[in-house]
């Protein structure tokens, strides 16, 4: 099976193995489905402990989920580039300062 087929099989099918592994280990290990369902919240910094640690731990060890994490991070880096080069034009800045000053002057009458 390729990576994708394996992932789909795991997500659709056998959760028994995940449950057995969780019981054997100490801290709660989560499966790929849970990690991927929480991926956006994790990347957005909106997950609190213990969920945050559980997702991070899963991503550290799971080679199936690694492409998902890497691609989402590349996507975010690309979108953040939109911030650069779009500053308010100088004339707009001046206009707004004048508006504020005029408002302030009106109020002191």
């Amino acid at each position, binding site marked *: 099976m390729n990576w994708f087929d394996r992932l789909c099989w795991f997500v659709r099918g056998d959760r028994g193995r995940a449950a057995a592994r969780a019981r054997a280990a100490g801290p709660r290990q989560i499966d790929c489905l849970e990690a991927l369902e929480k991926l956006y919240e994790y990347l*957005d910094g909106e997950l609190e402990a213990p969920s945050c640690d559980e997702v991070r731990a899963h991503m550290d060890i799971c080679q199936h989920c690694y*492409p998902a994490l*890497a*691609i989402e991070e590349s996507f975010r880096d690309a979108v953040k580039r939109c*911030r650069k080069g779009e500053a*308010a034009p100088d004339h*707009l*800045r001046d206009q707004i300062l004048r508006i504020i000053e005029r408002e302030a002057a009106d109020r002191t009458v």
Partner: protein
Amino acid sequence: MTEAHAREHSFREEALPHMDAVYRFALRLSGTPDAAEDLVQETFLRAYRAWDQYTPGTRAKSWLFTICRNVFLRGAERSKRHDEIVRRQVERESPGPVPVVNPVWTDGADSDPEGAFFAQIVDDEIVEAIEDLPEDYRMAVVLSDVEGLSYAEIAEVTEVPVGTVKSRLFRGRRQLQRRLFDYAVEMGYLRPKAAGGAG
């Protein structure tokens, strides 16, 4: 006199530094620099007049975005796009389920498992793709991924529950990624998985 000066001073210190962010947001909402400038001027004027109602130390940026969005929603520019917005909203009334496994992860995984193709897409194309998103998705994605607001802050600015913010972010990002992925394939930045190909 002193009080007025203090007011003006604190406004300059706390609100004006966010002008670039508000301008960017206004551009994404209204689509043209001229409309964006009008929107930004109106936003800061209203903000200054309402400055007494702003609690110092809270997030001035979110507060300004809220005002900007409200001015936009009431404004003339929006009514020009009204039909388009209604059409898109109607299309979205019954959105289908979105799979947990993002097709974009798998379509390019063989040739580009780290999504390096995103880095090759020029800024203009990314901006255009964002501006083509339906308005609700666009606002959520811009406020989160460009301006760094939290779910709670976005919920406040857009006046919807946090659950709705998450849903719009989820769908908006997926739609944006699909659009950028298709563009990357068109430009030859990566080769997609062959249709029906052996894994």
